């Protein structure tokens, strides 16, 4: 059997390479819409401990009471039909350790996305999530022997309930925001990672999230704990088919970097342009720890995502490097949040956005230095590249510095591609589209060079594809 590709969908997809969908063969599918009953059913289905059920219910009640955000793209947010979304959908009964055991159509999907191949070549471990549940999961044996835990979140809760209970919602409380509350109420899948003291995971671990069904809500929950002096690089990729109706992706990611630990979390989200991507990502860095968010937003209809770091321990460091590409009908509202709570903490934010064909890119950033935090250094750079007159870029930078010893730097720039730059590259044998892709990829380069090479190459190809047909 091969993956059935719906021709209509394929045509609608155009250049979006990941836009095909499989026939829906769900084993469990909830009705559309959300209620306390649905929340309890999800928890019961998963056989969760009582405290988790209660956390979910509390979060659900908060979600209902909490108004929609009154900032960001409120216009598009108001269009979300919470009753038209399926909150839980299971397509496979188990999380497999061998690709051969994954149901064939789902396996084919991940094959087409190149996941098993990448796993063999350059990854320490992989988890692949399809709709609500992880369908495949593996980790290299040597890491397992060193005590590294890399599981999907549901297995994490089953096998390590004490660790999960200690840290779950400790970084992003269930009352944090409407979408974090929603995620806490209906979460399913995601990754659970624990790196023991002093262990360095040299090759990245990767999670891949795929939404296949229409009007689907994917609410994965990720918790990463790096114990003292350890390090890990987690990579996340996401795609979905192109449908005419919308899907919702609302994840919560919590990172805990204990003293001296280093967590790098890299994302390239390439959701199709019918996905709302409303994600809360936050980490706490203890003494001398380091947290880096490398965050690429290429797809989705509306993304609202502001990776955050709380610099709790002295001498800790935060970095948020992000790029956003907004094409036709897209709004990337992205940025960063850093709280300097301790002395001698440092942070760096680099945000780059490109808008084209009427797309809209916004940088929204908040850097806070608390009164007690002495000698902090913070650096914010945001650059926007606008490719045509219809497109838009906005910057909303906020700095609240309550300690006078802080050293703050902020730079912002908005630029256009000049005809002379294009002519220069064309005179070296590059067509106008190639020239534009070279300029655009150059603009993203400070981000791209932070990615594993395989991802960097893919991102460059993706952007070259986006530049096709843009001239004339």
């Amino acid at each position, binding site marked *: 059997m091969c993956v059935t590709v719906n021709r209509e969908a394929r045509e609608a997809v155009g250049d979006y390479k990941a836009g095909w969908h499989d026939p829906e063969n769900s084993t469990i599918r909830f009705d559309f819409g959300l209620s306390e009953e649905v929340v309890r059913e999800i928890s019961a289905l998963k056989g969760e401990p009582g405290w988790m059920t209660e956390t979910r219910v509390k979060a659900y009640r908060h979600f209902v009471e909490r108004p929609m955000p009154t900032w960001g793209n409120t216009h598009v947010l108001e269009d979300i039909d919470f009753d038209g979304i399926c909150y839980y959908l299971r397509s496979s009964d188990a999380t497999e350790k061998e690709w051969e055991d994954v149901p064939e159509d789902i396996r084919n999907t991940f094959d087409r996305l190149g996941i098993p191949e990448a796993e063999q070549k350059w990854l320490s471990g992989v988890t692949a999530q399809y709709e609500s549940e992880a369908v495949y999961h593996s980790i290299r044996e040597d890491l397992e022997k060193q005590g590294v835990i890399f599981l999907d979140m549901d297995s994490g809760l089953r096998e390590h309930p004490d660790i999960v209970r200690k840290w779950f919602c400790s970084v992003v409380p269930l009352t944090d925001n409407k979408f974090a509350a929603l995620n806490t109420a209906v979460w399913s899948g995601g990754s659970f990672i624990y790196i023991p003291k002093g262990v360095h995971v040299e090759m990245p671990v990767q999670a891949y999230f795929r939404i296949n069904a229409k009007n689907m809500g994917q609410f994965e929950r990720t918790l990463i704990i790096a114990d003292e002096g350890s390090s890990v690089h987690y990579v996340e990729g996401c795609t979905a088919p192109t449908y005419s109706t919308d899907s919702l992706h609302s994840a919560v990611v919590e990172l805990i970097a204990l003293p001296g630990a280093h967590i790098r979390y890299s994302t390239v989200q390439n959701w199709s342009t019918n996905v709302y991507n409303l994600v809360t990502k936050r980490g706490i860095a203890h003494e001398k720890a380091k947290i880096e968010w490398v965050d690429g937003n290429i797809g989705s209809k509306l993304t609202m995502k502001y990776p955050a770091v709380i610099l709790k321990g002295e001498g800790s460091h935060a970095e948020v490097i992000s790029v956003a590409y907004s094409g036709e009908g897209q709004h990337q509202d992205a940025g960063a949040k850093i709280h300097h709570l301790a002395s001698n903490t440092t942070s760096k934010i680099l945000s780059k956005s490109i808008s084209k064909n009427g797309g809209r890119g916004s940088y929204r950033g908040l850097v806070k230095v608390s009164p007690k935090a002495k000698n902090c250094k913070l650096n914010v750079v945001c650059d926007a590249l606008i490719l045509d007159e219809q497109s838009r870029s906005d910057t909303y930078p906020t700095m609240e510095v309550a300690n006078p010893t802080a050293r703050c730097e902020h730079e912002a720039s908005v630029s256009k591609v000049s005809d002379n730059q294009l*002519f220069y*590259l064309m*005179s070296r044998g590059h*067509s*106008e589209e190639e020239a534009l892709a070279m300029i655009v990829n150059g603009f993203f380069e400070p981000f791209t060079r932070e990615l594993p090479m395989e991802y960097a190459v893919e991102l460059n190809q993706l952007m070259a594809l986006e530049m096709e047909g843009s001239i004339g």
Partner: protein
Amino acid sequence: MGQVTPLLEIRNLHAGIGESPILKGIDLVINPGEIHAIMGRNGSGKTTTANIIMGHPDYEVEQGDVLLSGEDLLELEPWERARSGVFLSFQYPQAIPGLQVGNFLRKSVSSIKGDEAAKGAEFRSTLKDAMKALDIPRSFLSRYVNDGFSGGEKKRFEILQLLLLKPKLAVLDETDSGLDIDGIRTVAAGVNSAVRGTSTGALIITHYSRILEHVRPDRIHVLMGGRIVASGGPELAIKLEEKGYEWLEVKSKAEGCA
């Protein structure tokens, strides 16, 4: 034996930007292996000539022809001209932040040379030799194209591209401006090695005669008010150096009245 097809032939070229005419009837023939120089003051139409040969979209040709080996250049897009063998060394090379020099050179050579492009070790060795000849350090390769380059570095980088792309026709627009004497000597040596003893032709556009002492053009043309007002051998440059452009101004006015 028939006549040699000229490498570059410009016939009665009238061109400008928008409504304002800049070139008012230029004729120029460069044969394979020849080096010609166009001299003239600011605003005389030198850079316009270079940009029109390369196909800058801002310029409009009202009348006339530009042929490369008998082939109509004006019909071609800039990248097609580059692939046909035209090269322009820019007066103001553009910075492309984030695009690494090494990567850019490899892509440009493969785009222009296609299947004939040197690959792998062969490319690296050609590149190494060319960089050595131009006194360019290896660290240059990981910098971004023209980004934060000094004036001299930009000009050397243009000549490096000339050596790697091996065009049929090299147009050098003010490549000597902003260079010290050593810089001029290095750049001139690069131009000589790209042209001398090959069928490549060159058109050197300059204010001053200094670079011409090192490159020794076969013909010199003086451009004034969008027209070529004088052509001659190397002695013309010496005469200009002595008498300045006024001498020709007076001469061309007198001829215009006659």
